[in-house]
């Protein structure tokens, strides 16, 4: 009962907040900045002046892609150098050493590509300077890059007979200045009020009340400027934690209220972008249709996860352990979960963070029941299109929409259209690339890992669960999610390096075809709907699109899932 109250409250608040935000974002991208953000206009113009950019000069899709790649490459290089040099740089109160090359490479790719996979342990590996100048900055910029690509695609769908898609610099700058930064400041201050730390003083030492280990009579409490980083890690669907255990850490996510607000922040912008999409293509119904697809799939997966975790661990039934749900305890499978979150908030977070390509965690997915752990894994494998990353989620779902109208068109023998644009061979080729590259990366990466000793050495659980750990790691990096089953051992360079490659491919080999589609569609004329047009704002289309998404995901991954979580559930 309480479970459904918490879940309903979450969904209602999410939709209520996403609507006005999405509408405001559409205005911002169309150059109509709301009054209260106007003071930042001069800052925006200052950027353009210094950079020598004319804000009215638009780009073709090739220029847009080139500038985006250069900008992301520069960001990658900056993070890599920071991590390698952190030992000699300031703001390192705890005296951490330079990050190893493989780990620095993985982390830099991870943040530039909006994945934020954590092979590093925040408080033990990264200095405050690295967290701030490196990771936090990329949290903003990689998110803004994803949003910019989506905006370019929206322009491609709504314009005709042009090869111009807008300016990457303008779209990226506006995403940061008017959307991400104001929201992040509000969220960060709120999180501090709940107990998230925000200080530049180093760790604090406390005297333990009841020392249980002769080696430790005091407790060193790691601190740092966490709130500012946590705020943007959630809003930008980044997910890289300040502390090793991410948002399970009591100083990163201290209360049920901070938990609710962080979960809202995870899905807020991806949900809002559906409204932005509707407004920018001139039909809010079209955006709501896509949002409906996301919400329906989300709720179905969420229900499964909550149910599976509430069942508890059957292997503990034989012991003197009470796993029942009651008013006095959450019960269920509490291994790897926090008492303040219990089952419901842990499963809700796990579903939200993998539906979006966020990847932050407030419980350890590795310790979930096999069925419960299958939910986050499959959500990532669906290609991060159920909400997905900021920008990247919706452009991924739009690729599925293109495939959906194409398949429907084949059935009735008519040229498929989406929003009045004819979908032809070129668009289909690109959409197919977008849909098939992630599964390819995930499955090939997993196959390589399980067939080499370097790969096998990473699994820390025996049997089918060890396979699940590896499959999860590649699903996460190959879809730019970044959440981890956490058990995987990243000390051998195999995982950091293969993971970095997977993240690069999943991010940029998708962005480029998306921009190519945008460029091709922008040149086409918008044809009025006829009797033979499949309406893409109907309930029928919602169902059809869900079917296509699930079908592609299931066809690609069922065999692999059968070897991991499914067989493990049967063996329990």
């Amino acid at each position: 009962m309480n479970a459904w109250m918490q879940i309903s409250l979450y969904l209602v608040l999410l939709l209520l907040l996403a609507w006005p935000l999405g509408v405001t974002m559409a205005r911002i991208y169309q150059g109509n900045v709301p009054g209260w953000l106007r003071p930042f206009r001069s800052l925006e113009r200052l950027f353009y002046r210094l950079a020598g950019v004319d804000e009215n000069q638009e780009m073709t899709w090739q220029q847009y892609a080139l500038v985006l790649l250069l900008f992301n490459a520069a960001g990658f290089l900056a993070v890599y150098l920071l991590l390698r040099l952190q030992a000699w740089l300031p703001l390192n109160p705890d005296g951490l050493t330079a990050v190893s090359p493989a780990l620095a490479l993985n982390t830099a790719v991870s943040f530039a590509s909006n994945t934020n996979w954590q092979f590093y342990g925040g408080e033990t590996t990264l200095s405050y300077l690295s967290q701030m100048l490196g990771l936090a900055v990329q949290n903003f910029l990689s998110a803004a890059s994803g949003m910019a690509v989506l905006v370019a695609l929206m322009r491609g769908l709504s314009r005709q007979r042009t090869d111009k898609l807008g300016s990457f610099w303008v779209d990226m700058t506006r995403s940061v200045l008017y959307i991400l930064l104001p929201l992040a400041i509000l969220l960060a201050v709120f999180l501090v009020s709940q107990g998230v730390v925000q200080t530049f003083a180093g760790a604090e030492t406390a005297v333990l009340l009841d020392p249980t280990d002769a080696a430790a009579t005091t407790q060193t409490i790691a601190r740092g400027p966490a709130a500012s980083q946590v705020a943007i890690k959630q809003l930008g669907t980044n997910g890289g934690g300040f502390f090793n255990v991410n948002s399970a850490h009591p100083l990163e996510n201290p209360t049920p209220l901070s938990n609710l607000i962080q979960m809202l922040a995870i899905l807020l912008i991806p949900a809002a972008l559906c409204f932005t999409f509707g407004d920018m293509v001139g039909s809010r119904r079209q955006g709501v249709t896509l949002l409906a697809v996301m919400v329906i799939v989300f709720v179905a997966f969420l229900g499964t996860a909550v149910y599976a975790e509430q069942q508890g661990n059957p292997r503990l039934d034989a012991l003197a352990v009470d796993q029942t749900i009651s008013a006095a305890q959450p019960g269920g499978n509490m291994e790897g979960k926090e008492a303040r979150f219990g089952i419901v908030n842990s499963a809700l977070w796990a579903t939200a963070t993998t539906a979006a390509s966020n990847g932050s965690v407030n419980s350890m997915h590795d310790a979930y029941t096999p069925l419960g752990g299958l939910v986050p894994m499959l959500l990532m494998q669906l290609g991060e299109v159920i909400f997905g990353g900021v920008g990247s989620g919706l452009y991924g779902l739009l690729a599925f929409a293109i495939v959906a109208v194409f398949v429907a068109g084949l059935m009735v023998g008519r040229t498929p259209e989406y929003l009045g644009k004819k979908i032809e061979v070129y668009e289909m080729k690109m959409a197919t690339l977008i849909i098939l590259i992630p599964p390819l990366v995930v499955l090939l990466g997993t196959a390589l890992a399980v067939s080499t000793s370097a790969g096998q050495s990473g699994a820390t659980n025996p049997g089918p669960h060890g396979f699940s750990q590896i499959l999860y790691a590649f699903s996460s990096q190959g879809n730019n999610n970044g959440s981890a089953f956490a058990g995987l051992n990243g000390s051998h360079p195999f995982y950091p390096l293969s993971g970095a490659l997977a993240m690069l491919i999943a991010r940029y080999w998708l962005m480029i075809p998306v921009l190519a589609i945008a460029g091709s569609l922008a040149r086409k004329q918008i044809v009025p709907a006829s009797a033979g047009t499949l309406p893409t704002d109907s309930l029928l289309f919602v169902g059809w699109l869900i079917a296509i998404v699930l079908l592609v995901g299931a066809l690609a991954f069922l065999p692999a899932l059968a070897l991991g979580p499914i067989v493990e559930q049967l063996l329990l």
Partner: protein
Amino acid sequence: MRQFLRYLRPVLVFLGGFTLLTGVIYPLLVTAVAQTIFPHQANGSLVEQDGVILGSELIGQPFDDPAYFWGRPSLTQPYPYNAAASAGSTLAPSNPALTERVTARIAALETAHPTNTRPIPVDLVTASASGLDPHISLAAAEYQIERVAEVRGVETAVVRQLVDEYTEGRTFGVLGEPRVNVLRLNLALDALAADS
């Protein structure tokens, strides 16, 4: 080359500008606001007594003395509740190591209080996600009340009243799980002993 430089300038300006804005000004601004409005929270919600820092309200501590309430098992290395290196449990339900560890934890709890034969609330024998979980469920506190009262030689009613005092309900009656803050409860127990 000229072409390349034309692209390079905006790349460097935007990267540098946004590094300054989002990497320096943003965290400094948030820190300034946080330290002004919420200094206690921003510095880790520390518990201080006579100038000595006894811990953080939000960070659990290890307990194995039967006179104290025990918290969640912690898997941080090299010792439990190491707040300098948070770490969670990554043991799958199917992992035999998990069953072994839970068995050992049950044995420890039963040794500490042999007359208590009730089944043990699951959160008391399973490791937390952070290794620093400051809370236990109400059931886990209830399970330990008699033991703590017996060892300390006080009425169970007195201990139960303290537990109630340090119980945090669901936020707004809806959010999260009801729970007891172990460190604060144990500090209160000691304060009670010091008073009497």
